[in-house]
């Protein structure tokens, strides 16, 4: 077996576990964006002025398209914070896995793959909900799936670094409140980045913004900005690779010595 094949076996294990309670998990994936869409899209959205929004969009669709990316971010992050930490510490699953031909770095890649798959499926629920509530979603949104997978893989890898350095679950709060929540609030999910004026360009290279821009264009049936595509193909995989290495280095110390 090659390295990637071994990581895939790790991912398969997680997928099997997930399947055991997939019903509840998927219901949550649909229910959550639906709730947000109801509150922000139908409720607050009614009070908003459309002139600040891109052509052809109401606030519901604007917010919903951002949610496609942010759901991927949140889902991948939470999986590889809480899920991976539990596997590592409480359940000694990492220890059992590295007693097989699978190495620690392959286990981590498998974890990131799983986070990417699970989070991408969760994020797919958003356009489905949008269509169900009658929004004109372009079928081009399906082309956004690879970008979602890359984005989720990136956040899954970042979460592994945080998890690897955390002494306990409590520490995740620093990452969640200091990194993930601000990113969720300031990456163009709720309002266009143009509001930042001269800083808009800087805001566009924040990882979540990259995903939001891509999904929002595709929802409208437009080709996403070249910069977002390039960053998705270079910056995000590059940082993912770096994060996986950092996580491995820390866990090597922590689990092995």
């Amino acid at each position: 077996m090659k390295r990637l094949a071994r990581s895939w076996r790790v991912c398969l294990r997680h997928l099997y576990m997930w399947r055991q309670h997939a019903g509840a998990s998927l219901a949550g994936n649909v229910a959550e964006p639906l709730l947000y869409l109801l509150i922000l899209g139908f409720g607050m959205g009614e009070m908003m002025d459309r002139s600040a929004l891109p052509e052809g969009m109401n606030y519901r669709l604007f917010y919903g398209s951002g949610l496609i990316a942010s759901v991927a971010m949140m889902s991948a992050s939470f999986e590889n914070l809480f899920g991976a930490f539990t596997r590592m510490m409480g359940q000694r699953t990492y220890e059992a896995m590295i007693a097989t031909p699978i190495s620690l770095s392959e286990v981590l890649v498998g974890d990131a793959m799983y986070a990417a798959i699970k989070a991408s499926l969760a994020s797919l629920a958003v356009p489905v909900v949008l269509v169900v509530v009658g929004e004109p979603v372009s079928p081009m949104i399906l082309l956004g799936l690879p970008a979602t997978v890359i984005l989720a893989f990136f956040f899954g890898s970042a979460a592994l670094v945080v998890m690897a350095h955390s002494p306990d679950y409590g520490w995740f709060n620093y990452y969640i409140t200091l990194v993930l929540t601000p990113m969720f609030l300031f990456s163009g999910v709720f309002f266009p980045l143009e509001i930042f004026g001269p800083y808009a360009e800087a805001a566009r290279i924040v990882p979540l913004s990259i995903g939001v821009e891509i999904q929002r264009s595709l929802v409208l049936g437009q080709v996403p900005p070249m910069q977002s595509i390039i960053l998705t193909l270079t910056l995000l995989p590059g940082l993912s690779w770096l994060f996986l290495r950092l996580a491995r280095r820390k866990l090597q110390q922590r689990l092995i010595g």
Partner: protein
Amino acid sequence: MSSSSYAPLSMDDLVITAAGLKRRFGALVAVDGVDLAVERGECFGLLGPNGAGKTSITRMVQAVLPRTEGALTVLGLDPGRQGAEIRARIGVVPQGDNLDPDLSAQMNLQIYARFFGAGAREAEIRARELLEFARLSDRSEDRPAQLSGGMRRRIILARAMVNRSELLLLDEPTTALDPQARHQVWTWLKGLKEDGLSLLLTTHDMDEAERLCDRLLVLDQGRVIAEGRPPDLIRRYAKEQVIEVDAGTHWEVPEAVQCETHGGTTYVYFERAQLGLLTGALTAVGLPYRVRSANLEDVFLRLTGRDLRT
């Protein structure tokens, strides 16, 4: 073993070799220059008090823990460079329980088999076979928490065989098992040895070591302090027989015999021929005593028991 035919010929009969093997954790030297050679088909024991370095050695052999210094080969391969190949061919029973708590017994084995590269169908069949072998087929759908400690241990043992390993590393496989379960594991291990597997067995149970190990070494603070076949070690360090006398009493121990006091009891090690002399002396002073044959526990206490480790 065609898969190991490319190994150097001299290595072919040695499944593990170590020379000057060292492992440091910061300032602590956990394994301090250990030499070791485990022959194919034998059961080799690692004995030593808590913290002696047994698990560290096992993890280096397992190609999980990198060594700090020294030479090490496992199945003729280098754990530093060929870790995945080594792990593919060995089975590990870790110290403690690391079964997957969210998976049934069947799935624990099945998914583990997949980690070794087995296809889906093959893994399912292998897992069933092993559960059968562990006499746990009727509990295949139970999760670890629903099984007894002994049953979990059997599943862990079965899991170590999922890849038809040539070498089993067993780190305290019977700790916390009841006598029945322990005997069952011993029977198993003997059977596996008869089938030609090599075993590296760490244990604190001297009875277990004496029953199973062809050869063993005793470690203390990372160093080898004795090595040999159990009967030879007993002969060398504990003679043939032992008299136990409650301490706090005094009597002149004849110079010719060796004795030691541990935890309120004096142990006198002697040759069978000296029995009359000693019991005569004890009867004369009216002290109660017990006579028994020397065993590995005596060897262990003599070698490592001078101060109690915490």
